[in-house]
């Protein structure tokens, strides 16, 4: 959060949104992030009928294409792995699980805020996730 108090601060805050520096704006800084796999599960297991909107259908198609973990067990196992690293924010956790980078260098390039974590610790987490992906049923 900024502490500047010049007029038009609200507008300035909007312009400062930058995922690379983990600035998601006032509405989303503390919001719960979902993995693509979790969204897939939520959408497919709705007790109501699916709404027939363009947004809904496109989102459903997208999550089916890009879900990396096809069971809820593997998705929660990944969350469990990433929870061991206390410095990770919700946003970073979801980005790692959604993009599944293979090595620490790739991870830091696509999620710049990960620089705070040492390479070998990050690499261990990524290796574990890759193994999970390989052996899920």
């Amino acid at each position, binding site marked *: 959060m900024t502490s500047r108090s010049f007029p038009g601060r609200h507008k300035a805050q909007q312009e400062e949104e930058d995922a690379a520096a983990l600035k998601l704006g006032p509405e*989303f800084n503390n919001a*719960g992030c*979902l993995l693509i796999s979790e969204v897939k599960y939520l959408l497919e297991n709705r007790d*109501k009928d699916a709404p027939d909107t363009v*947004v809904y259908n496109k989102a459903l198609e*997208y999550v089916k294409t890009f879900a990396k973990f096809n069971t809820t067990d593997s998705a929660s196992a990944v969350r469990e792995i990433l929870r061991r690293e206390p410095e990770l924010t919700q*946003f970073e956790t979801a980005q790692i699980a959604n993009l599944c*980078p293979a090595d620490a260098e*790739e991870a830091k390039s696509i999620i*710049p805020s990960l620089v705070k974590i040492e390479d070998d610790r990050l690499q261990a987490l990524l290796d574990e996730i890759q193994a999970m992906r390989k052996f899920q049923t």
Partner: protein
Amino acid sequence: MFFIKELTHTIMLHPSYFGPRMQQYLESKLYSDVEGTCSGQFGFIIAVVSISDIGKGMVLSGNGQAEFVTRYRAIVFKPFKGEVVDGVVHNVTRMGIFAEVGPLNCFVSQQSNPPSYTSQDQVIENNTKIRIKIIGTRVDATEIFAIGTIKEDHLGVIE
């Protein structure tokens, strides 16, 4: 990025709906009102997960309608500048590539591309999956539009 978020929505209810089936009517009205909408503040509201509070219902003086302030939890999708996302190409033009990231349309300009869409082993065409970094978003009344780039390490075609 997908989020789960608590949101509010105000429903104005005409007196002819006051009665035993009012609750169901309010719920279906909430679903049809908010699902599939898009705002700059919250992004795309994809689906309502649960309704936490349907509201008390306050009859407004002057017109007899009741106002319900409902609180619900929904799956929302909002793109951020600097975020890396995967998408599917749905159009390739001389100007650049158009990709779909769920409900979001993303344009990757020719200028922010490597000079060619084709290399020895990778081709970008319709339905190719690509990894994009979002460099800016534009918010319309009913849509969000994003500009992306693939001219960085680890971006571009994915298997």
